């Protein structure tokens, strides 16, 4: 009793191609994309340990460039400027973003949809246009370029991202939880601090970290709005490049990668703990 296949030879070939070639093509493309993303970073980190001044030829292992980074006063100052601006502008834009998101999700007012769309404008407008406009505006208002002007400009570009993140979370927040709190006798203030805010804290932290990251490596806005003595790190690195590339810049880059990884781990760690608990 022989069993004949219901498939023709052509069908069999097609199934084999789909299973063996197409099925492996997608992972292969993904792998290539990842390599393209990460190989330059790996090379950058590797050459930060290079003993010679070259960023192309490997000549030995050293930590010296990291020492150079910390010895460079100008670099330290730029790092400090960037950190202050990232922290303050992220704080301001998260506060504005969170409250705006809640207003859009929770309140009904005329022009709500228009406002929600308009808020995304800074994401799609060319940053250089906004930077020029802002500079002209500040000069007209006689504002000295410095911390204030840079914070304002960074808030402007990070608010849409903060709003989007908190808005998505606020929209999926069960409205009944706030009604339940009101039902149990809580006034608006108590509802916000005891129910809404604690439940929105994870997205608010995410919004803050994203805003801080965006501000930290912003270049275009800072070019226009930074003042004398308030050069942020990206501008400082750019001006160093003009004097020649040394592994010191690689070391600085490696440190920034490390910082970002630490932030990501800190955020992921919270989630990981929650997952492990379950």
């Amino acid at each position, binding site marked *: 009793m022989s069993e004949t296949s219901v498939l023709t030879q052509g069908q069999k070939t097609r199934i084999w191609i789909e299973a063996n070639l197409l099925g492996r093509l997608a992972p292969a493309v993904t792998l290539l994309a990842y390599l393209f993303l990460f190989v330059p970073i790996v090379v950058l980190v590797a050459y930060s340990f290079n003993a010679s001044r070259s960023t192309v030829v490997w000549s030995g292992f050293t930590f010296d460039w990291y020492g150079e980074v910390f010895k460079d006063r100008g670099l330290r100052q730029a790092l400090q400027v960037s950190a202050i601006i990232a922290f303050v502008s992220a704080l301001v834009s998260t506060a504005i973003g969170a409250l705006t998101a809640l207003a859009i999700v929770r309140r009904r007012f005329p022009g709500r949809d228009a406002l929600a769309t308009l808020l995304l404008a800074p994401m799609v407008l060319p940053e250089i246009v906004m930077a020029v406009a802002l500079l002209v505006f500040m000069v007209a208002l006689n504002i000295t370029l410095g911390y204030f002007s840079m914070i304002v400009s960074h808030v402007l570009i990070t608010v849409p991202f903060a709003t989007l993140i908190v808005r998505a979370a606020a929209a999926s927040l*069960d409205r009944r*939880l706030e*009604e*339940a709190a*009101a039902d*149990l*006798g*809580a006034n608006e203030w108590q509802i916000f601090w*005891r129910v809404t805010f604690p*439940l929105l804290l994870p997205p608010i932290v995410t919004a803050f970290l994203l805003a801080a990251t965006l501000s930290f490596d912003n270049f275009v806005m800072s070019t226009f709005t930074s003042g004398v003595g308030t050069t942020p790190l990206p501008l400082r690195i750019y001006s160093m490049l003009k004097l020649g590339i040394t592994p010191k810049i690689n070391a600085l880059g490696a440190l920034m990668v490390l910082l970002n990884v630490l932030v990501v781990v800190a955020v992921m760690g919270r989630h990981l703990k929650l997952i492990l608990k379950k």
Partner: protein
Amino acid sequence: MSDIAVELRNVSKSFGSTSGATAEINAVSDINLAIPNGEFFTLLGPSGCGKTTTLRMIAGFEQPTAGALLIRGQNMNGVPAHLRPVNTVFQSYALFPHLNVADNVGFGLDVKGVAKPERQSRVLEALKLVQMDHMIGRKPSELSGGQQQRVALARALVNRPSVLLLDEPFGALDLKLRKEMQIELKHMQRRLGITFIFVTHDQEEALTMSDRIAVMHKGRVLQVDDPVGIYERPTTLFGAGFIGEMNFLKARLIENGRFAIGDRTIALPSTGIAPGAEVTLALRPEALSFAPFENAKAPLLQLDGTLQESIYIGTDRRYQVRLDSGETVFVRIQNSGRHIPAHLSNGDRCSLYCCTADIRILTE
């Protein structure tokens, strides 16, 4: 001090759209209700009938567009939810996911500034009432649906509200648990003496638990009565069809006290009906029988037809009979009862009997 816990006087609610592009929707139209203290009152109706909107207006989440809403004799128009002496058990429980059981139950006392020692003892007392005092440190996500239900109940009751509002609280529970909770909740309500206003679309649940039921349809209250009255004396076509199974027969009033059904005439009281008027006669499947029986109350009505189908459904057998008038009726005979027509098979001619006292005349 009034004996009425909640009173609605000509309350209406319409939801307009902010843009004005769509027409206003009347969620509730001209409702009048008076619910005495200590009553278990149920708003019963299909989804979209306005029962939840009515409950939300009592809770203070919605404001009536017209009419007055009174709680314990005080006008509540414009009073926000957090200042009303009512508490709600939500359909989805709405437990705070970031707080444990004890903090969920203690929330109401905490925001009102009740001191910690008193708060703790009252939380424990409320959790004991719903048999959840052993789960005090758990998060809501670690509880089953039935347990969350109990915590939600404790969270509302701990505030000692004068009125407890329940919005389909058993909707998410399985049938067995639901039946247990129904009995338990009814006992709890009697013991505590709190006015319960219960919203459900489940007519059996409403009949089981309520002191009185308001049947709602399309934003209106059709009938308010006790469960027996709602089931046995429906006043509207909708109410008769919505609660339990019902047969409807077309009839016409020939002269005072005499109706025509097909080619038969029957004697029924016809107060308030104009001669010649078309009416609907409503009769329960369990009121019909295949054999004449003795009844002292009223004469029997006989209807002839053909058996189309009989279905065994456990406790009962359900027969579908096509009457000679062309209408189809259902008959329900208890399998343990005495009058089991064993000899009938599909297609047989048969006669149905019904006591005329069991027939309701519906005019609308």
